[in-house]
């Protein structure tokens, strides 16, 4: 098994932390994992993306030329990355922000109203965690408890934010 996922969106939407949390969770489950942030001459408010590869075997390349999953937090990312998806792949869309429809017929689209759910919860910044919750439910790449355990590791002593994030993850998880 080798599954690659690209998380993409605006800088500041938390796409890197989505990938990082998934990678943490996979590590806690003793899987082989690589996390590769995009890096380059980026500007504030520009686009950001990262790639997570999870496998039972050694991972040859951390780069995903044709990933199994793409998570698009905004429209430019959806347009940019949908063509990279493998035929039969799954495209997760933050449907609160993305108006365009996916143009491919050979992929499965999962619409997650992540930003609206997060806003209804009173924490619009945690849209990323809502989508991550939905993503792990649908992809089954890691368990919710591993993601929460990993999140505790990265959040450290920030109890308040931890509670908000956990709630958002659960809300996304319960959408499906």
């Amino acid at each position, binding site marked *: 098994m080798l599954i690659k996922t690209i998380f993409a969106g605006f800088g500041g939407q938390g796409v890197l932390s989505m990938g*990082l949390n998934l*990678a*943490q969770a996979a*590590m806690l489950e003793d899987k*082989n*994992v*690589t*996390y*590769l*942030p995009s*890096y*380059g*001459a980026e500007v504030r408010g520009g686009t950001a993306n990262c790639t997570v590869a999870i496998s039972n*075997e*050694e*991972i*040859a*390349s*951390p*780069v995903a*030329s044709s990933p199994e999953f793409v998570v698009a937090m905004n429209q430019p990312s959806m347009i940019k990355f949908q063509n990279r998806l493998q035929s039969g792949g799954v495209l997760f869309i933050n449907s609160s922000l993305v108006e365009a429809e996916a143009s491919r017929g050979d992929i499965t689209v999962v619409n997650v109203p992540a930003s609206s759910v997060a806003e209804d919860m009173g924490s619009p910044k945690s849209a990323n965690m809502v989508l991550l919750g939905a993503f792990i439910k649908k992809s089954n790449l890691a368990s919710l408890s591993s993601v929460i355990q990993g999140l505790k590791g990265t959040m450290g002593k920030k109890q308040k934010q931890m509670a908000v994030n956990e709630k958002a993850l659960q809300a996304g998880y319960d959408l499906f």
Partner: protein
Amino acid sequence: MTKVLMNGSSAIAEAAIRAGCQCYFGYPITPQNELTEYMATNLSRRKGCSFVQAESEISAINMVYGASLVGVRAMTSSSGPGISLKQEGISFLAACELPAVIVNMSRGGPGMGSIAAAQSDYFQATRGGGHGDYRTIVMAPSSVQELADLTHRAFHLADKYKTPVMILGDGILGQMMEPVKFKHEAPAEPPIRHDALRGAKGRRSKFIKSLTSNDTELEELNWSLFRRYELIKKKETTYETFLADDAELVVVAFGIAARIAKGAIKTVRSEGLKVGLLRPVTLWPFPAEAVQELAKKVKHYLVFEMNMGQMIEDVQLSLEGKGEVSFYGRPGGVIPTPSEVARVISRLYYQKGLSK
């Protein structure tokens, strides 16, 4: 120690601290700034340790030179263009028989090139880079775990052979996060070399210098370095083989390219092609004996590098004409995919008639 998720550059920094590195000097350059950043946060906090962001790469390597003169474990890191600037200092370290660890998380070149990962600094790393008749041990890790393990070994070898040691990574290895387990705890007291210049109280004063007007003395220094290099070749050459026992074709690759090649080999093996891998872990000394051993059975080699063909020369030299060498490379910071390399391997395998 449990596993932690860490990027390659930070893993080198943490491993260096645990190896007793007392001084780090660096000047920022992408894609290895996480190393400098990690040292700024973590090394500077440790008792008796120093972190300095120097005003230039040249300054940083000369600070390493100074720290090594007084017997402490010291390190610097940079990428391509910055490593070029450090070459004079590395030559001086070699001449004065001083240990040091130099990290090159290489990027696309020549010139300023790009910040993407490349392997085009192989010649510079393995041929000395600076002036004079010297060698540096060159390590080529291919995972974050190995970056940590080889950093520890680099400090040990530098002290053991009194020589600069280079770790040759690349932008991807530096940026990529993977689980890593650190096998050593940082020493309570960082190791000090007592033959260094630490005051002449109770003994005659001594000099460590690279300039001499005495031909005999310089010839003897070169002979002494040469003998040491021969010893390093004998004792420290390291490599990994994968499915090479029954192989008809062996892919030779290092660092991140070896990882990609391994993925490609698994694919072609599943199609019944007898292909194996030789991965040099030390680029200098190059595993020439391992190549000669393979040459007794294997006639066809594919050298795969993220450059236009540099290590291929070492493979050809090691084979001494006893094998046929093909090459596949992607220069300029392009990261080939395992399926691309698998296609190249399959094509070559059939072209050479190995499927019969």
